């Protein structure tokens, strides 16, 4: 007898499992620098992150932290910028920087077999940057020209304007590195920032990948234990002393082109708010994934855009809700009114059981994708240490999402969305 395949019914789904984060080790170098280590992944690679509590919220002017981190790699006491790059190439290794609100990190990514040759290069960059003036001026000139190209993009202007109107152009969360700001950035301010924040007591090290623990600690001690302390001048985040100057309503910037970028939003809440994870579920329903209500309505039913997304973004001391997309000029007004309708719908009608189950499972499944590579794990450890949020606490996200109910979603939407107070930034051609 021929077996008839039932193609109409999905195969039986299995329950989704919580993939718990692994446990990392904490130890110290002889001078006290904390070292977090984790053996992870099957590839013969290792990433070493040297992290400083020197994030962008400490800088007096926008751009200082990032340009300092970048310029640390443009020459050291022993190597020119080119020599350093050639040394790294010789071993197929990279040093890159990342700057967040509360951290600045220099990351060495290398094949495990070359750790002994490449770790000293990270040490050079961290402990002995020469901050050459000529290279700094050149880099500024190049980036100024790149900024002028970016300034022609509606997406770039909308991002800038949204920050300015949401927080104020002087607020650490609202300011923007434009031409003027870059032109006035000085090498002195960068050196001063380095002096103020880049020292052992303000740092920790993360090592993730394939490596020998004892050997790694020995190498790190040899290199970094003589890294000498400087006078500690702790400063607090400039966000705490800045005042928010938030505006709402339509802010139009007339630009040539075939599409406009829209950014709609209002203030949200800080990262430590108890509703942080639950609001991620609410936001996902609205515009946080490919199958979201905004995408369905504005892309899949109307074809007004290639993509429209929303984010519920939390910084350390504040947060924003933002909806953004590049929209055909003639569809702008209709899109904005549909976005408002979708926000209202979430505040007025409970989310259907089917849709809620789908969104929860989507978020739970996505969890695995965020913990696959040693690089992702290194970032997670950094996040955990910088924000003092344990892996156990991060793992609880799974249960929080799993347990959320439709009436809670409704209550959260009513509590946190403010569709009548939206800032509406539109950069594009007014028809």
């Amino acid at each position, binding site marked *: 007898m021929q077996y008839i*395949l039932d193609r109409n019914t999905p195969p039986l789904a*299995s329950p989704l499992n919580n*993939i718990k984060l692994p446990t990392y080790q904490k130890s110290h170098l002889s001078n006290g620098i904390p070292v977090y280590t984790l053996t992870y992944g099957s590839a013969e690679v290792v990433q070493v992150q040297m992290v400083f509590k020197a994030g962008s919220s400490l800088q007096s002017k926008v751009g200082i932290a990032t340009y300092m981190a970048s310029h640390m790699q443009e020459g050291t006491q022993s190597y020119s910028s080119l020599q350093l790059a050639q040394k790294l190439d010789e071993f197929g290794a990279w040093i890159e920087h990342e700057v967040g609100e509360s951290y600045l990190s220099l990351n060495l990514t*290398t094949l495990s077999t070359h750790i002994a040759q490449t770790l000293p290069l990270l040490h050079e960059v961290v402990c002995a940057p020469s901050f050459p003036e000529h290279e700094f001026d050149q880099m500024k000139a190049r980036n100024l020209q790149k900024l002028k190209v970016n300034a022609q993009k509606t997406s770039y202007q909308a991002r800038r304007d949204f920050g300015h109107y949401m927080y104020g152009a002087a607020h650490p969360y609202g300011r923007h590195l434009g031409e003027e700001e870059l032109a006035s950035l000085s090498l002195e301010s960068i050196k001063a920032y380095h002096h103020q924040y880049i020292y052992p007591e303000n740092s920790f090290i993360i090592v993730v990948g394939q490596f020998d623990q004892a050997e790694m600690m020995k190498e790190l001690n040899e290199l970094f234990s003589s890294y000498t302390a400087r006078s500690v001048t702790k400063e607090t985040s400039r966000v705490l002393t800045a005042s928010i100057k938030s505006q709402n309503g339509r802010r139009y910037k007339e630009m040539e082109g075939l599409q406009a970028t829209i950014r709609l939003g209002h203030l949200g809440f800080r990262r430590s708010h108890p509703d942080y994870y639950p609001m991620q579920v609410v936001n996902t329903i609205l515009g946080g994934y490919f199958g979201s209500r905004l995408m369905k309505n504005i892309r899949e039913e109307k*074809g007004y855009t290639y*993509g429209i997304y929303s984010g519920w973004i939390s910084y350390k001391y504040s947060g924003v809700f933002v909806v953004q997309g590049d929209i055909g000029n003639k569809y702008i007004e209709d899109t904005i009114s549909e976005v408002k309708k979708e926000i209202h719908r979430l505040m007025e009608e409970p989310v259907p059981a089917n849709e809620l189950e789908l969104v929860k499972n989507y978020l739970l499944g996505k969890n695995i994708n965020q913990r696959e590579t040693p690089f992702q794990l290194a970032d997670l450890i950094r996040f955990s240490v910088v924000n003092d949020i344990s892996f156990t606490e991060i793992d609880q996200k799974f249960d929080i999402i799993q347990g959320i109910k439709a009436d809670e979603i409704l209550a959260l939407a009513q509590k946190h969305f403010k569709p009548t107070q939206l800032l509406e930034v539109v950069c594009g051609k007014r028809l």
Partner: protein
Amino acid sequence: MSTIQYQTHTLDNGLKIIIHEDHSIPKAVVDILYKVGSKDEESHRTGFAHLFEHLMFEGSKHIPSYDQPLQRVGGENNAFTSSDITNYYLSLPSNQLETAFWLESDRMLELNFSQEKLDIQKRVVIEEFKQRYLNQPYGDAHLQLRNLHFQIHPYKWATIGKEISHIEEASLEEVKDFFFGYYAPNNATMVVAGDVEPDKVIQLAQKWFGAIPRRNLKKHALPQEPTQKEARSMTVYGEVPFEAVYKMYHVPAHSDRKYYITDIITDLLSNGKSSRLFQQMVIQKQVTPQVNAFSWGMHHPGAISIDGRVAQTKTIDIYEEALQEALDSLQALTEDELNRIKNKLEATFVMQKTTILNKAMGLAMCDSLGDIDLINKTPEIYHSIGLGEVKEAATTYLAPENCSTLYYLPKEK
């Protein structure tokens, strides 16, 4: 360097299956590559393969929505179209693997075609066309230059298409023809990778894909691009702040060993701070803030590109002179420099293999090039390239008469 292990199995209907096990996390990836791309389009219907990729997500014969059932079991998916292939990939928790087979087999079986869905996706693709190309400064540079660089080969047009009207005019009949002409088990490769058991994979493949009929493929011979004999150039004006210079050079097909030599040349030229174009043009002569060389990796004889913006204080002539000097300087290439770039490429290879998705895509891509084992052999190919070969290839392929240039200039105000 550890090699990537895999096994293959082909169903009676011609569907090739490649299985790679990696049990480090409970995740599975399914990647299906259809051997059809924009080079298979007709010249009055460009952009069609990519438009079709969008329609593949609009529901199939028995399943009204592709995305929702996948998201419901914690999965994610996407796809891309190139000149040569169309690639669909998804990842999901490994205990939900069968859902992927159910979804992918149904859309290989038959789509749920409708005029309304076609009309909406045309609009979406037109907005994509604007967002990624037409509404960006210099965004259409490659669209225009390809048309000059390739005189007759369908690489003339980009995957997004030659013009918006081609997308607007696509009909439902054409969509159906395209499906049955190219979307067939005997024109596809499926990679199943991650936390999977090979026996189970084969059993599932047989169950869900086994009954899909083999189809008559609409394969046609493509014209061979004639050898370029003299330098070509064109000038366009747009809403841009600075002059820019885009160059394309003819290079051999990806399957040719010489392709890899030209690829390593692009790395020598612009991969990182130590590269020749960066050191000579950006740092020493300051003729550009940004210059980039890269391979298009086409299956037929294709191209490498060298794109740069002219520094605000310099002229196009000075830029081009500096570029020519940098290209000429490849004749002074040293073993050390070549070895450094090889080491860098090898390391890049290892880093890319840290995700199951990258391994799955890599296997599918290598298979489409005619040899799955390229996934392991590629680093050796780069390693085997000698200094003399690089210098010779630089002379041959970077010659002015092998090059097409587009000058992108600010519109006169």
